[in-house]
């Protein structure tokens, strides 16, 4: 008989800039090696996944990361007393830190997880990316961290226009001249604070790799994809699997060097010099993860098995010639359900 696992999943915001929760759940539902009950964890009351009862068995609201790990821990302890969870898969950047901090304590109450270490999580931060590249011999675009606007002028000596002006957490703009650079500097630092990162602008083709490392330096899964259609929010609305050994080699080097533990997404740019640059490393499952299940590498399933302590063999191949096209549809929901999650925090 197949094992039956109770798996908690966050990121149920399947909206136009979607969280990965719903696609992760679809992968888990299709897992060949186990059956599952899905417990949704939501922050807001209008996350569509809450109302998708064919995918999510029960949803609980959890406190925002800004409330602190103790608040999250207490809420999860309550949920655990009702649900007997086996595993949690957090899917938001902003919450990962809290789950990493709580990993051991959650395991003590029986909730497994399979996350990057705190060091891995911090090393790949945007403002640490240049050091990260240097330490691990990985190619990242040249960048510089600035603490005051005056440094922009010095930076012009090493960076040709256009270059990218990036915020500490979010926001970026491509500056074609000094005035634009200064405008972005002021705008972004006003919103997200200092420092500001300026980065060499690399023109080229963007590739993404969704992958899974076992924490010992082995690649368990990796599926490279090229975005075909991008929304005005920069999200892929369609993408195609690509078969390029160089992308897998780079992924192997990344995993081997960092001994990455857990799922990740590499955002890569192939420049006009044909070199592959790592633009960003997301320490979590991407929203297009269902494609990986569609081509024979069900990453959420493999991650679940790793988390439960099974040994998992690397996927040898994936199916080529497949693409994903995202769509959205409107559900009809009774208002009482919205009331229920709003007032009781459970549905």
């Amino acid at each position, binding site marked *: 008989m197949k094992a039956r696992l109770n798996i908690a999943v966050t990121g149920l915001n399947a909206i136009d800039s979607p969280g990965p929760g719903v696609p992760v759940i679809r992968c888990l539902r299709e897992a060949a090696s186990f059956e599952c009950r899905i417990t949704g964890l939501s922050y807001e009351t209008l996350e569509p996944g809450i109302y998708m009862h064919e995918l999510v068995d029960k949803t609980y609201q959890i406190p925002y990361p800004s409330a602190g790990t103790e608040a999250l821990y207490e809420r999860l302890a309550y949920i655990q007393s009702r649900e007997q969870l086996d595993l949690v898969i957090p899917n938001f950047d902003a919450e990962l830190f809290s789950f990493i901090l709580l990993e051991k304590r959650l395991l003590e109450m029986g909730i497994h997880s399979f996350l990057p270490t705190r060091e891995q999580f911090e090393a790949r931060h945007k403002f640490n990316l240049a050091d990260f590249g240097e330490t691990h011999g990985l190619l990242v675009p040249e960048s510089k961290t600035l603490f005051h606007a005056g440094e922009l002028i010095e930076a012009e000596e090493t960076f040709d226009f256009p270059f990218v002006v990036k915020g500490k957490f979010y926001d970026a703009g491509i500056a074609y001249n000094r005035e634009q650079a200064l405008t972005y500097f002021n705008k972004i630092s006003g919103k997200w604070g200092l420092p500001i990162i300026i980065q060499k602008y690399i023109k080229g083709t963007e590739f993404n790799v969704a992958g899974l490392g076992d924490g010992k330096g082995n690649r368990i899964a990796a599926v490279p994809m090229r975005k075909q259609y991008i929304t005005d929010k920069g999200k892929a609305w369609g993408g195609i699997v690509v078969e390029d050994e160089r992308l897998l080699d780079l992924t192997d080097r990344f995993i081997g060097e960092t001994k990455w533990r857990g799922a990740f997404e590499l955002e890569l740019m192939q420049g006009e010099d044909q070199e592959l640059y790592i633009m960003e490393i997301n320490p979590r499952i991407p929203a297009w993860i269902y494609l990986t299940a569609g081509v024979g590498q069900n990453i959420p399933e493999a991650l679940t098995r790793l988390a439960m302590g099974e040994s998992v063999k690397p996927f040898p191949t994936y199916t080529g010639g497949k693409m994903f096209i995202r769509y959205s549809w409107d559900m009809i929901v009774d208002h009482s359900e919205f*009331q229920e999650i709003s*007032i009781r925090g459970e549905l």
Partner: protein
Amino acid sequence: MKIKSNIAISDSGLLFNPGSGESYSVNPTGAEIIRMIRENKTDHEIRDYFLAHYQTDTSTFEKDFHDFVQLLKQQLILDLSDESTT
């Protein structure tokens, strides 16, 4: 003062206004006041009830009651067309 007739309030303190589509959460004290307004109790009756059953004093309650009624008006939960009669 009248609560609009189509407004529903649940045991758990959820108030739904189908006219605007807005939902509200009301604490037990607030729910009790809304119930009493609905029963056409006067301001004085409501005040006396609270003074008799809760650990509060006249000035605190009157201030809070006034503040709460203002919010109900702002959110169009109280029927304003009825204003002239109160």
